[in-house]
């Protein structure tokens, strides 16, 4: 596949990719508002945030006045107001997912705790934004926007309180102990509620003025669960609790709060209806958090990827300068010029971690952009359903069964040659907003948990490798780029807003949606087409790996284990979870490849890029290639384990012997088919003697399709290591700045 690619590129990467490259890769080259926001967030990150880290402010669990200065910096730089619509004091029109993702990326480039501190405010508002009544939205969003010039008030800040002390809510969000009851209900008036809730690990709690809290009904007159808004001035107890003694994200405030307050029923997020003398919240707490998390998890995913990419420059600088100043390394000597970069492994591992960062960022930003597309579609969908009088989850599900069929039909038509399509049907389906919503939603429901799972999990592992490349320096506070902190912090990114188990569980459901799988099949063909024109990208390798994954999934759905137990089922996390992990590798790498194509298409339009575009594209092509190879390796291993691992291994027993040759039988066959004896592995002697091994080799009956694909996949790795060698060469030559640009 890579035969068209040279051993050494005539031009290697000249400088580290700058904003011009990033804006195209992540599709915001035409969004000046976002470009400015990036600069603004970067100034805060590399200025006040970086200074706090280097001064040692991460050394305390408490929310200090120094840390609190960050909130002012967020307000003044426009970061806080990004979440708000213009009518509520914001300045960005339209969906904000990509904007928030870029902020998270910029802040986490320096310190993910600062990113969490900023985003937790949005998380607190998100239930109100997504499911709140118009009054709730107008009230709280406006209060949470920084004051306009001349306005005399403080910015209202919030916390999101779901997790409870053990043994209640954690991964399992249904295990609520927080309760809401009716204390007073005068006929014709707003009921008064009593809310009791204890939180654990609640971000922003050290300073929050309001909290959106998940509670269950503790009263026959309230049906089900809901989220309520609690304010610090509500009568009763609003105890912020003790600071969590966490070891990560110390620039955010985390506490275990206690609430015991009285609030009007109008604080139920999304409002309520009254039926038969009972309050029925319009949204259960799980409906609210589902709407919230599917957006906010993407930003968390990007934090880890930002850190990986941020590690590249300090590592190169460390490697190059490692021996400078010593007697043995004089200017002009290789040891002086290249330092540790003389050693291939140092360069290869750096290439690996860069590729993982790149793939994660590609996936995360793609998910954020997709939500920007879905937001208006979802509103349209809600309006259409309301107009049709379709309410409630079940009725919606039923309605969407037909929409999904239409969407599948559209995909079938798209795969058909244009002249063979029924034009009218195609046009109708193509312009159907519900069909568009269904297709995009099916993908987003996979991309979001996949990004959260893969970026943070694989990212955390790779961050460890990043530290290794800095030797002992890597695990000190002095390490440039704060790499040790970044490594530790990744573990939180993998944990909060649903740990990996939650994401795997989500994926194991959403990735089986036929609407997703049908699009996934199209993506396989898409990657082959990419490979045809850009053979060095590894897109063909990826396509084969995707095929293998799909084969495995289909197989696991219909086969059983050695004892007749169904394989693909929710209780069998040993099957579903690894398959979800494997999908993460595929999706991230695919998006990385698509972004490369975007750069190739749009790069020439930017004169600043023109000069070095060929070398940048070459480098990014090789990065895609090694990432595709790595993904293929992971997917191949996982799939093989699942496909073979649940079968019983044959033993040296009667059943096992049936599949073996008898030695005398083989002798006579040798006369008829010369050479057969040397091919047969399992030969049993007349006395029952057999080769010294666990048993006869496992039969692969029914698995030939898998074996063919697997061995094809191995072959597809051809050229990947050559790409890595080219990357190593480029990494040893790329020009980097004289010093890191933070702290400023």
């Amino acid at each position, binding site marked *: 596949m890579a035969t068209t690619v040279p051993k050494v590129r005539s031009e290697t990467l000249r400088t580290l990719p700058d904003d011009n490259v990033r804006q195209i890769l992540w599709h915001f080259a035409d969004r000046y*508002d976002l470009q400015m926001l990036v600069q603004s967030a970067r100034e805060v990150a590399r200025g006040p945030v970086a200074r706090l880290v280097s001064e040692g402010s991460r050394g305390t669990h408490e929310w200090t006045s120094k840390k609190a200065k960050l909130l002012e910096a967020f307000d*003044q730089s426009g970061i806080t107001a990004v979440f708000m619509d213009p009518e509520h004091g914001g300045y960005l029109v339209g969906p904000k997912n990509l904007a928030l993702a870029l902020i998270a990326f910029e802040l986490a480039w320096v310190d993910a705790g600062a990113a969490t501190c900023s985003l937790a405010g949005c998380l607190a508002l998100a239930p109100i934004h997504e499911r709140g009544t118009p009054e709730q939205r107008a009230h709280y969003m406006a209060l949470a926007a920084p004051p306009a010039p001349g306005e005399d008030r403080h910015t209202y800040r919030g916390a999101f309180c779901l997790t409870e002390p053990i043994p209640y809510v954690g991964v399992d969000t249904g295990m609520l102990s927080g309760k809401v009851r009716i204390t007073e209900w005068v006929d014709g008036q707003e009921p008064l509620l009593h809310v009791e809730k204890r939180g654990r690990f609640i971000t922003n709690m050290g300073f929050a003025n309001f909290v959106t809290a998940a509670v269950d009904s503790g009263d026959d007159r309230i049906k089900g669960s809901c989220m309520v808004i609690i304010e610090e001035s509500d009568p009763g107890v609003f105890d912020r609790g003790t600071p969590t003694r966490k070891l990560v994200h110390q620039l955010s405030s985390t506490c275990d709060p206690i609430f015991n307050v009285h609030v009007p029923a109008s604080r139920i997020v999304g409002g309520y209806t009254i039926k038969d003398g009972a309050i029925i919240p319009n949204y259960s707490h799980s409906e609210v958090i589902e709407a919230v998390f599917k957006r906010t998890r993407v930003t968390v995913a990007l934090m880890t990827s930002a850190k990986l990419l941020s590690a590249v420059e300090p590592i190169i600088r460390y490697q190059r300068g490692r021996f400078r100043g010593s007697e043995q390394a004089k200017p002009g000597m290789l040891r002086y010029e290249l330092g540790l970069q003389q050693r291939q492994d140092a360069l290869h591992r750096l290439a690996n971690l860069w590729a993982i960062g790149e793939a994660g960022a590609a996936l995360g930003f793609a998910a954020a952009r997709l939500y920007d597309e879905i937001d208006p579609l979802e509103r349209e969908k809600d309006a259409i359903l309301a107009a049709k009088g379709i309410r409630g989850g079940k009725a919606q599900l039923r309605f969407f069964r037909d929409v999904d069929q239409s969407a599948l039909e559209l995909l079938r038509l798209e795969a058909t040659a244009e002249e063979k399509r029924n034009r009218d049907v195609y046009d109708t389906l193509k312009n159907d907003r519900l069909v568009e919503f269904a297709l995009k939603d099916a993908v987003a429901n996979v991309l979001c948990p996949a990004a959260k799972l893969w970026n943070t999990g694989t990212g955390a592992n790779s961050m460890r490798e990043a530290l290794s490349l800095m030797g002992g320096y890597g695990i000190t506070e002095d390490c440039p780029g704060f790499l040790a902190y970044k490594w530790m912090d990744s573990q939180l990114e993998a944990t909060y807003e649903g740990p990996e188990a939650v994401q795997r569980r989500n994926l194991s459901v959403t990735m089986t949606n036929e609407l997703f799988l049908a699009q996934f099949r199209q993506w396989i063909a898409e990657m082959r087409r990419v490979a045809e024109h850009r053979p060095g990208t590894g897109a063909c390798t990826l396509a084969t790996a995707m095929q293998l994954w799909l084969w495995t999934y289909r197989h696991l759905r219909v086969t059983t284990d050695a004892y007749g137990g169904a394989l693909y089922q929710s209780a069998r996390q040993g099957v579903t979870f690894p398959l979800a992990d494997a999908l993460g590798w595929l999706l991230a790498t695919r998006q990385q490849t698509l972004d490369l194509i975007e750069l190739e298409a749009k790069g020439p339009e930017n004169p600043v890029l023109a000069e070095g575009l060929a070398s940048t594209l070459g480098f990014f092509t090789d990065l895609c290639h090694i990432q595709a190879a790595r993904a293929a390796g992971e997917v191949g291993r996982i799939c093989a384990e699942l496909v073979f691992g649940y079968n019983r291994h044959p033993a040296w027993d009667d059943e096992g012997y049936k599949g073996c040759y008898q030695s005398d039988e083989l002798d006579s066959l040798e006369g008829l088919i010369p050479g057969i004896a040397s091919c047969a592995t399992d030969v049993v002697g007349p006395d029952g003697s057999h080769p010294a091994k666990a048993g006869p080799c496992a039969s692969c009956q029914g698995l030939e399709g898998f074996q063919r694909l697997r061995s094809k996949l191995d072959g597809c790795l051809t050229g990947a290591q050559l790409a890595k060698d080219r990357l190593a060469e480029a990494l040893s030559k790329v020009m980097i700045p*004289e010093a890191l640009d933070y702290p400023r």
Partner: protein
Amino acid sequence: MTNPYHVVVCASVVPDPLQTLEPITGPSGPALKNEMMLPAILDPWASHALYEGANLVKHIAGSKLWLVSMAPKAKLQQVMMTVAQKVPLQLVAVDGPSSGFADAHQTAHALAAAIRAIAGIDLSRLLLFGGWESASRSAGVTLQLIGEELGIVDQFQGVDAITPQEDGSFEVLERVEGARHQVSLCAGPPAVLGWATGNLGEPRNDPQVGMANMRTIMPALQRATVASISADGMRYSNVATPKQQRQTRIVKELPAEDIAREIVQWITQE
């Protein structure tokens, strides 16, 4: 005060100072290695002039501020993503080289033409601001040359403050040797002020200011006139970055007092 100013700030785009600046010989003379690809910023000296200009305009009713910049258009656009967030401004873009090796006379000529062409400008009220030198070359002549072309004879260099007076005159502080300032009273505009650092900090980025500015900045970039600056007749005999000096001695267990004494000795050597 009833004497509004028309402040024009001339500012170039230079490579971010943290980048490695390596002189090379390109097809049209000296250049910096990978210059187009290096992240760029607004020249720091001229940036001070911009912040001072914006502050002046804010306090004197009826005043206006333009930022006139010659640079490759796409580079200028990228730099504007930050600069536009700092202060309210109107951009006048000239598409041309921003390299430190471009001829200062031709550059000044192109900039003077751009200033003359600004719609609504009153050259008799002009305060021409810029940096007293530039981070890309430090020749410090461009601003003076623009002033010459526009016929402005009151020129101040190394300016740290301007204080308008009630009668329309203004006081200027210029840096002179020995950490002192020379105080001048200028009868009124037009004048050229080449700024040192001034007294204002860098304003924070404010995307809301940026969004307001972008409404006029993007059209200005699209309208940018192309300046053809040629290298004909120019010859650089030698180009080098300032040498870093490093004299390291490793001496074990030297008492702190001895180290201090040695440093003081070294400082007072000259």
